[in-house]
């Protein structure tokens, strides 16, 4: 609380420099104007637009002419027969992705960290980061091809070792698993960047003294390496909580089909079909608002926890 000591001085400075300070700050305000205008229109504008979730929205009457109906759209939404399976699918897929999305990158980073040949390390990194930057459109096109039960290369390999072909994208049982697996495949490499950099930050002298004490590699891993990256693991786990209702629209929309709706339809795809394809604007917006509200709670809690456990602040 050093503020107390300098309060008097600061006060004098404040009154004396106030006008200069305003002039000095003015360019900073001006720099922010373009971004503020655009964010105000497109982000805050669409927040205002969520009022249609409480309206009997008629496109011809517009946002300001449609009558308000209170929570009717929400009641209708939650009485739809498939809303609960959709929420369940979303949470199941999202939770599996979150868990695997922390575990796999950590294990990969630990294994890669053991390698001391620099060119091999860099080469592997370059390759495994790559899928993260390819769009789900392209990846969906590729996966639809290689996972095909008739012509796909994966099933060709499975048949060679005596397994009957699996319809990964058309079988209700396999679809969620395939989504989680392909998502991990795409993101684990890039997800390991943060752990790898935490690993290089561990003080090498800790390992030296452990060796002198006779600790083997395994013990060093347990007592030095893992504790060294625990805080970052906790941080990433906590932050990933915000994704509890993010099943992954880009991925699922481009790979699913009506035959896997029972296990593969998620909130975002549901909202999209309801809103764009069936023109149920108000109910679709209500579903979107429900998702945003739940996510907001999770994000707020996760940031709070991240601040508490890892001293992480977003700004």
């Amino acid at each position: 609380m050093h503020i107390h000591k300098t309060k008097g001085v600061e006060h004098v400075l404040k009154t004396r420099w106030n006008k200069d300070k305003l002039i000095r700050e003015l360019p900073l305000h001006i720099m922010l104007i373009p971004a503020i205008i655009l964010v105000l229109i497109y982000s805050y504008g669409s927040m205002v637009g969520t009022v249609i979730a409480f309206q009997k929205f008629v496109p011809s009457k517009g946002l300001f002419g449609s009558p308000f109906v209170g929570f009717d759209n929400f009641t209708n939404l939650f009485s739809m027969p498939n809303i609960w399976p959709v929420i369940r699918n979303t949470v199941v897929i999202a939770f599996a992705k979150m868990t695997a999305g922390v575990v796999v990158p950590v294990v990969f980073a630990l294994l890669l960290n053991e390698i001391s040949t620099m060119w091999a390390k860099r080469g592997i990194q370059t390759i495994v980061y790559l899928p993260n930057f390819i769009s789900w459109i392209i990846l969906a096109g590729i996966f639809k091809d290689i996972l095909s039960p008739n012509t796909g290369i994966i099933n060709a390999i499975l048949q060679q070792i005596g397994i009957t072909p699996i319809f990964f994208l058309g079988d209700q049982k396999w679809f969620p698993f395939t989504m989680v697996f392909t998502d991990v495949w795409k993101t684990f490499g890039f997800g390991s960047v943060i752990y790898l950099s935490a690993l290089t930050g561990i003080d090498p002298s800790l390992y030296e003294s452990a060796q002198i004490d006779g600790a083997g590699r395994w013990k060093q891993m347990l007592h030095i390496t893992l504790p060294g990256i625990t805080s970052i693991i906790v941080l990433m786990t906590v932050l990933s909580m915000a994704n509890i209702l993010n099943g992954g629209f880009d991925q699922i929309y481009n790979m699913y089909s009506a035959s896997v709706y029972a296990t593969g339809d998620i909130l975002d795809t549901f909202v999209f079909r309801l809103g764009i394809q069936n023109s149920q604007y108000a109910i679709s917006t209500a579903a979107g608002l429900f998702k945003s509200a739940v996510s907001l709670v999770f994000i707020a809690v996760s940031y709070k926890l991240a601040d508490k456990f890892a001293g992480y602040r977003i700004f």
Partner: protein
Amino acid sequence: MNHSIKVSTGRKVFLCFDYIFLLFIAFICLLPFINLLAISFSSKLPVAAGEVTFWPKGFTTSAYEFIMHNNAFVKALWVSIQRTLLGVTVNLVLIVLTAYPLSKSTADFRLRNVYSWFFVITILFSGGLIPGYMVVRYTHLMDTIWALILPGALPVFSMLVVMNYMRGLPRELEEAAYIDGANHLHTLVNVILPVCLPTLATVTLFSFVGHWNSWFDGMIYMNKVENYPLQSYLQTVVINPDAFFRNTTNASADIMRFVSLVNSRTSNAAQLFLATIPILCVYPFLQKYFTTGLVMGSVKG
């Protein structure tokens, strides 16, 4: 960690398996792309029979020639190039103009926290699909390239990464410039930006990839298919793969001569591969900045 002079046998075995395992993982990451490339350079019959794995069979470039004669593909490619160049420029200018003022302490810029919250709230809460669509309609952007650029003109996450990076810079840099009588714009351009290269490279990559890869906005904000960017166009091809070949009935003789060698699978593979090339070109140059640019920006120093 090569301090120990003798390496135990257990360690050697472990390292051996570690290398093999990691190489296998890397191979798994590359396999789909190799398969795709092989299919795109193969002719129709071996592909239809499912014979192509990692090497083209009946090597031909006709799938690529076929695509180059396909106006829809070329047009969509052009839309994508335009939107990416314009979009990345707009993103970067806004990121820098916003990150710099917000990187000041509250003592130097009193409204800093108010402004920061103004932007952060948009991460915490978004209006969703239909309201977003309505705003784009109301602002008359439908069927223009600006519909793909203005709604996401400021990527708030990238802005925060750059802002945190700027806050980690030594204060002396700025103070020296201030004493020399430099104004804010001058300080930003000549003092701050040159040392922000790693983080700017990182957000440039993200912005480039984001624009190149996005398809959903193109699909909902463009009523006319000829305004689709490449990924939206590919989406229609991926979802409805045969649409292409149904149209060949009234196609020119120029296109018809490829049909004996090309089917929807090979032409799709070629299109998907072509759409990946820009990413493959940009990525290696910017990869070296990831760690410094991203990690230093997201975890504050």
